[in-house]
C-alpha cells in the first residue's frame, strides 16, 4: 500500500503540472510484457561464433606455461586469444576519470590473482565446442600464498596481491593508503562522553543477480567499424573502455544497448565487450561472449565485503558527540570501482546525523578474491547497516526510544556535515515521524513537534577546530610534503562568519517548548565562503601516478586530482 503525504512540504512544491507526477504507463511496457523487447542477447547473426574463457582454478598462482595445442585442434575452434593478443592488456575502469592506475589484464599472462580469472579465450562455432576446447587448454600453475581477509592483508608480511599496489591498499592522493575524514576532535570528545560504545560489523559479498547475465555480441560492420550489442549500464563508459583496451578510435565502435535485463551495478565493468570485439576483429565474424549463471555468480564482480568498526561517544540526553569509524572494503584482486566506493562511504559518514566530532579511515584493500564492483548503493548500504544497528544499541544503552534518539540527532537544514558542506532540503525528522505514525509507534509530543526546517544551523553550522594526523601506513614512494605533524590542529577552513546562533534543538528526553518561530534555516547557512578545495599544489605530478594508457579521459578525477 502506498500513500502520498502531500500535506508535508506542500509550500515547497507547485503540484500544478500536466505530465510530471502522473502515473503514466511505461513507453516500453507492451514490448516487455509480450516478450518482444529486444535485449542484447536476442541478436542471432549469421556465422556468429561463441567465446568462452579458460579460468584460473587457483586463488593465486604463477603461470608457468600455457599449452593450447590440443585446444587448437578441437572441433569448431576458430581462434584462441591470449593476453598477448590484447593490444592494451592492462586497464582500470576509472582511468577514464584519471582515478587510479591500470592494474587489471583482460587475459592473465604471468600470474593469476583470483579464482576464476580469465587466462585464455576460446572462440568456436558453438558454445559447446568452445567449452570442450576450454577443457583441453593446459595451464601449468605454481600456486602462491593467498590472502582473503582484509585485516590480514594489511599485516606486514601478508602476500602482496596486486603488483601495482604492493601493500594491498589503494593509494589516495598519491600519499595515503586510505581515505581520511577529520572533523573536530573525537578523542577529546570520547573523554567527555557519558558512554562510549565500540562495535564491529561485517557485510557479506553479494551478487547483483540480474536475470540477464553479463555479455556482449560484437560483429564487423561495414566501413571498418564494429557493432556491439551490449547490456552495459554505461554505454559510453563501456565504449571508451573497449576503445582503450583495443587501441581503437572510439568512432570505430558502434554500441547499441540501453534496454537491460537488470543491472544493479553488475554491468559497469565492461569485461565482455573488449574480448567480443577483439574476437570479431581477429575472426571477421560476429562473436558472442555471454557469461553463464555460474560465471555470473562466481566470476563476475560482486558487491565486495565490508568491515566496519564504529566507536561512538554519547551523552545521557541522547546527543552523540563523537563518532569514529574504520572501514575496510574488500576490493578483491583488482581495483574496478572499490576505490570509489570507499570515497563514497567517507562522503556519507557519519550518516544522516549531526555529530560535532567525526573521524574516519576507509581502506580499499586488495585480497585474492573476485574483484568487487558497484552494487546498489555500495559504499553506503553497508555503512547504513552498521550505523543503524549501532544507533539501536546506543539508544538501548542510554535508555532512550530509538525513534526519538534518531530525531535528537537528525541533521537539519543549515547544519554542517562532516565533509564540510551545509545541509539543505533535509527530511529525516519527518520520515521518522511519519513511519512512527504508520507503525503506531508512540512518540512523545516533543518528538512530534520537531522539524527538519528548524533547529539547524547556528552552532551546528560551525566547522570545529579539527585535529589532524598523518596516521596510516604509507604506500611505497610516499612523500611527506604537505602533511602536518601529528597532533597539530588545522584552522577551521571555511571560516564561518559569526551567526546569531539558533539554539540546538532541545533534547527530546527532557521535553521543552520548541522555539516558536526561528528564522528560516536557509538564512543561517553561512555563505559558501572559502573555495572548495584549497591549494597546496604538489610541486610536480609524479610520472607513475599517470594512468599508463588512458588516452581518453572524461574528466580529471575524483580523489587524486591535482589542485
Amino acid at each position: 500500500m502506498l500513500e502520498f503525504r502531500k500535506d508535508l512540504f506542500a509550500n515547497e512544491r507547485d503540484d500544478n503540472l500536466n505530465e510530471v507526477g502522473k502515473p503514466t504507463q511505461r513507453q516500453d511496457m507492451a514490448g516487455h510484457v509480450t516478450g518482444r523487447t529486444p535485449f542484447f542477447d536476442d541478436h542471432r547473426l549469421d556465422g556468429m561464433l561463441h567465446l568462452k574463457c579458460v579460468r584460473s582454478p587457483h586463488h593465486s598462482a604463477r603461470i608457468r606455461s600455457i599449452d593450447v595445442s590440443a585446444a587448437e585442434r578441437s572441433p569448431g575452434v576458430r581462434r584462441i586469444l591470449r593476453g598477448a593478443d590484447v593490444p592494451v592488456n592492462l586497464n582500470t575502469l576509472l582511468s577514464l576519470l584519471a582515478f587510479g592506475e591500470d592494474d587489471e589484464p583482460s587475459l592473465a599472462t604471468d600470474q593469476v590473482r583470483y579464482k576464476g580469472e580469465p587466462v585464455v579465450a576460446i572462440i568456436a562455432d558453438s558454445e559447446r565446442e568452445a567449452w570442450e576446447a576450454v577443457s583441453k587448454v593446459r595451464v601449468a600453475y605454481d600456486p602462491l600464498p593467498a590472502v582473503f581477509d582484509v585485516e590480514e592483508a594489511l599485516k606486514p608480511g601478508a602476500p602482496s596481491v596486486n603488483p601495482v599496489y604492493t601493500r594491498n591498499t589503494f593509494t589516495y592522493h598519491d600519499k595515503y593508503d586510505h581515505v581520511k575524514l577529520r572533523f573536530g576532535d573525537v578523542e577529546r570528545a570520547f573523554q567527555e562522553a557519558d558512554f562510549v560504545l565500540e562495535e564491529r560489523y561485517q557485510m557479506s559479498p553479494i551478487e547483483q543477480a540480474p536475470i540477464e547475465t553479463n555479455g556482449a555480441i560484437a560483429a564487423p560492420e561495414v566501413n571498418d567499424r564494429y557493432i556491439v550489442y551490449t547490456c552495459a549500464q554505461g554505454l559510453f563508459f563501456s565504449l571508451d573502455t573497449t576503445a582503450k583496451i583495443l587501441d581503437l578510435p572510439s568512432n570505430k565502435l558502434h554500441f547499441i544497448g540501453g534496454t537491460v535485463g537488470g543491472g544493479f551495478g553488475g554491468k559497469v565493468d565492461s569485461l565482455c565487450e573488449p574480448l567480443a570485439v577483439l574476437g570479431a576483429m581477429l575472426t571477421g565474424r560476429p562473436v558472442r561472449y555471454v557469461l553463464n549463471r555460474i560465471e555470473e555468480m562466481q566470476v563476475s564482480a560482486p558487491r565486495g565485503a565490508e568491515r566496519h568498526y564504529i566507536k561512538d561517544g554519547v551523552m545521557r540526553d541522547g546527543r552523540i558527540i563523537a563518532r569514529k569509524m574504520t572501514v575496510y572494503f574488500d576490493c578483491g584482486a583488482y581495483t574496478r570501482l572499490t576505490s570509489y566506493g570507499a570515497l563514497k562511504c567517507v562522503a556519507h559518514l557519519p550518516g544522516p546525523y549531526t555529530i560535532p566530532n567525526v573521524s574516519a579511515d576507509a581502506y580499499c584493500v586488495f585480497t585474492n578474491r573476485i574483484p568487487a564492483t558497484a552494487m546498489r548503493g555500495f559504499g553506503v548500504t553497508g555503512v547504513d547497516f552498521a550505523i543503524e544497528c549501532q544507533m539501536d544499541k546506543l539508544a538501548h544503552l542510554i535508555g532512550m526510544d530509538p525513534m526519538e534518539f534518531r530525531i535528537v540527532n537528525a541533521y537539519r537544514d543549515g547544519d554542517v556535515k562532516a565533509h564540510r558542506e551545509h545541509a539543505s532540503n533535509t527530511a529525516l525528522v519527518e520520515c521518522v515521524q511519519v513511519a512512527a505514525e504508520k507503525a503506531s509507534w508512540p512518540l512523545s509530543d516533543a518528538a512530534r513537534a520537531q522539524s527538519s526546517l528548524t533547529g539547524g544551523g547556528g552552532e551546528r553550522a560551525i566547522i570545529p577546530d579539527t585535529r589532524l594526523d598523518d596516521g596510516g601506513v604509507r604506500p611505497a614512494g610516499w612523500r611527506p610534503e604537505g602533511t602536518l605533524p601529528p597532533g597539530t590542529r588545522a584552522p577551521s577552513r571555511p571560516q564561518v562568519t559569526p551567526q546569531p546562533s539558533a539554539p540546538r534543538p532541545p533534547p527530546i528526553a527532557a521535553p521543552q517548548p520548541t522555539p516558536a518561530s526561528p528564522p528560516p534555516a536557509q538564512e543561517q547557512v553561512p555563505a559558501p565562503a572559502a573555495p572548495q578545495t584549497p591549494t597546496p599544489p604538489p610541486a610536480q605530478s609524479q610520472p607513475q601516478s599517470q594512468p599508463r594508457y588512458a588516452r581518453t579521459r572524461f574528466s580529471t578525477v575524483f580523489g587524486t586530482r591535482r589542485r
Partner: protein
Amino acid sequence: MAKHRGRGMAAINYPIGLNLGGDPSQALVHSNPTGKFTVALSSIDLGQGMKSVTRQIAAETLGIPVDDVYVDTADSDTGPHCMGSFASRGTHRVGNAVIAAAKEARGVMMEAAAEELEVDAGDLETDGKGNIHVRGAPHRSITVKEVAIAAQFRQGRTISGRGIFLIPMSGVDPETGAMKPVTTYAHACLVADVEVDDETGDVAVLKMNSAYELGRALNPRMVEQQLVGGAWMGMSHALYETTEPYYPDRDHGPSDFNEYLMPGPGDIAPHDIAVLERPAADGPFGGKGPGEMCANPVLPAVANAIFNAVGIRIDELPITPEKVLRGLKSQGGAKPPQVPFGGPKPNGAARP
C-alpha cells in the same frame, strides 16, 4: 520452543548521483515534421523506467502530451554522451539534461508559432494538449503539428534542442576529507516487524511500515514499483544473500538461484509506504530518485527487530538461521529486552 515477535526501525539518507560531480549527461530533442518529438539519449533503461521518466519530463517541458514524445535510447551513433545508469543518478542528471534540451526546442517551437500567429513569442503558451495559443486569448491558437509543418517547410527552422547537465567536479581534501560529494539527499525511515523461530533460527518478516522522502515523485506508479521491489531486495540482503556464506572463507559459494537464496513469494511481507516529497532545488521538477536507497533501511531495521524479538545482536550479514541459532545458544535462549519502546509488539510477545 517458540516463535518470538519483535520490531525494529532504521532511518537513513542517501546521496543522489555519483559523488563529487564531473559526470555529465546529455540529451537531444527534436520534432519530426508533424510535431511528434524524439528524445535521443545514450542513457540506460535497466528496468527502472529511464525512458518513461524522461518522456514525461520532456512532455512537461515542451508543453505537449506525453503521447507525442518518444524516447530513443541507447545507440552510441545517435544518442549523445551519458555517464550511465548507476549511483541513483539517472533521474537527476538525465532528467535535467532533458529539461535543458526540451527548453531549447520549445523556444524554437514558440518562435515558429509566433511567426504563424503574427504575435510576440513571449505572449504564447502551451495547453499541454497539443495546442499553442495567445495567453488570455485561447481562440488565437495553432496546433503543435501545424507549427512543426510550418517550421519545417515554410520557415526553415529546426525545432530541436540540446541539453547537458554537469555538476562540476569537486576535489577531496586529503587531510580532512572536505568535499562536495553530492547536491541532494533522499531520506527514509522504516519499521520492520519480524518473527523469530528459536527452534529453527528462521526469521520471517511479517510487516513493514515506511516513510520515504524522494523529492517530487515524477511518476507515482514507478516510485511504488521501486519502493516495493527495493524493500524486497533489502529483506533479501538482510536475511538471505551471500556469495561467500563463510566469508572470508572462499568455499561454499552458490552457483545458481537454487543455492543463491532470495525471499520467494511466500516470504514477501506486506509493506505500507508513505511517500514524502520535498523537492530538490536542482532536481528535475524537484525529483531526486528512489533508486538504490529504498533497500537500505530494511537491513538494519530487520537486525534491530531480531534483537527486539529474542535479544541477540547479529552484526554480520546475512542473518542466516545458523547465525540466529548460534546467537541464541550462546545467550542461553531467547531473552527479549525489557524495554518500553515501539509500542506493543504485534499480536503479543511470543507464541508457543
